[in-house]
């Protein structure tokens, strides 16, 4: 499981893990998963799809609602967690681990200055 303390977060509850300067893994937070309830379907992008920041790249459907997931950083889709297609429950069980969504190869070093760190995100969530 990824160490939550090392992740960066958006206000829309996506998380970003800096694997390398220009390579990130992306998922959605435990708070987002809790809000969605039991997740029944995850639609992921094609490999090599080019994403701009804030592009919608995935859809997560739960028994309650359907949510669009937005790219926190720009780049090319390097990996998708296709295990979620058959086992969407992984996203409920381990949103920071086996429930990751995609990995993005950026063209330059990823700038995380616009994102929240883990403690800022905790604070943000408790203000909701």
């Amino acid at each position: 499981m990824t160490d939550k303390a090392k992740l960066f977060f958006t206000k829309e509850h996506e998380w970003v893990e800096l694997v390398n300067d220009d390579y990130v893994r992306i998922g959605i937070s435990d708070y987002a998963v809790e809000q969605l309830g039991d997740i029944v379907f995850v639609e992921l992008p094609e490999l090599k799809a080019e994403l701009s920041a804030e592009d919608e790249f995935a859809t997560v459907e739960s028994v309650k609602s359907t949510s669009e997931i937005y790219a926190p950083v720009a780049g090319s889709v390097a990996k998708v967690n296709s295990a979620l297609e058959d086992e969407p429950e992984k996203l409920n069980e381990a949103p920071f681990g086996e429930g990751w969504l995609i990995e993005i190869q950026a063209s330059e070093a990823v700038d995380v200055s616009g994102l929240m760190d883990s403690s800022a995100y905790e604070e943000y969530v408790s203000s909701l």
Partner: protein
Amino acid sequence: MTTTYDDLLFEISKPGRIGYSLPESSIEKTDLTNLVSDHLIREEPAELPELSELQVMRHYTGLSNKNFGIETGFYPLGSCTMKYNPKINEDIARYPGFAQIHPLQPEKTAQGALEMMYRLEENLKEVTGMDAISLQPAAGAQGEWAGLLIFKAYHQANGEGDKRRKILVPDSAHGTNPASAIVAGYDVVEIKSNKEGRVGVEALKAAVGPDTAGLMLTNPNTLGLFEVDIVEIAQIVHEAGGLLYYDGANANAILGKSTPGEMGFDVVHLNLHKTFSTPHGGGGPGSGPIGVKDYLKDFMPAPRIKKEEDEYSLSYTHPQSIGRVKGYYGNFGVNVRAYSYIRSMGAEGLLQVSEDAVLHANYLKARLEPYYETPYKDHCKHEFVLSGIRQKKLGVRTLDIAKRLLDYGFYAPTVYFPLIVEECLMIEPTETEAKEQLDAFADALIDIAKDAEENPDTVTGAPYTKAVKRLDEVTAARKPIVVYQKN
């Protein structure tokens, strides 16, 4: 052993059992192979269930007894306007002149039916403040889609079809709005509601531009709140070159009080199966007529009803029309019922419908306010939202509250919608309920709120009185079985 009629017809079936024995035919038998070519004839007979007539009757009567409808009990399903549908509508729809005509018979022999359609259009013009109506769309979402095709045709006629690609939709909108926009080939831009639960004028100003095709809005919105800035909203969208679409799902709140036309909308749909008391959901098909202002008339679906002196006809020659959106002329039988409702209520009666619907909703809201979080404090229109966040902290979720209501004999309200309200309950009592009924429902919700504090297990374990308890929705959604599998 007694057969319980929960079994499927296929499970009750016994080989060789039959419902009817037909007498020997006097017509000479012909072998099927003489009539149909070999490759169309199945090699093994179809596996049809074999039962007696009585077994079939008990099976379906058993199912019908399990059904819950407005005639069984209170049905406060927010945004769906589950009002009682007066039986006079059924009488009128069964008049032979309406029930036994064929859509392809000569117009001269169906003048009464055409006149009814013409008059219904005239009535709906008045209700909506629009200049032309088409009765074709079969339901609300199809009306939305047809209306957006009219947006498109309009922008194309102005040479801006390629440029205006975006439809603005508030985050409290019915899911059909963004869905219809996508099906009509548009991109959707979501507008965030302000703290009061309405479209923020500033957010809207920031979102409109030369790429705006239009805005879709429900008024009152899905929180049951009237968009008080609607005139300014319309102005902002129009000045940007866009059009306004009125989702008529909540028209039950405004009859005789205001019209979408007055508010500045260009295209509307009405859900006759909501506001105008026609059968709903499993009880029958819907009807979602659309209305437009004068400058959009030419784009309306064809054929259109035409009246010349005292003669009615269908006119097909409309070169700019978006075309036909449904076979024949809409769900005719449903439209007859709506016309019967409008005529039996009259203008005064329809005004009272909205006044009572709003009164009932505000009464229930006031009774429930001490027990449930009310995220929006303003007076509501015909429906309102509660949030179950207090109960959630006690381990009782809105889903549990909804399930517990079933034990009290009520249909559950809409839950978890609109999406912008956490643990949402969306309640629409409609005008057709007596005060005692509203009180009984409020009492039940108050009981449940008390149980959430004192005996939460009572609520989380519900329902106790129903044939089926909690269904495994999660497995059903994750691993659906969509085709009957015989054991």
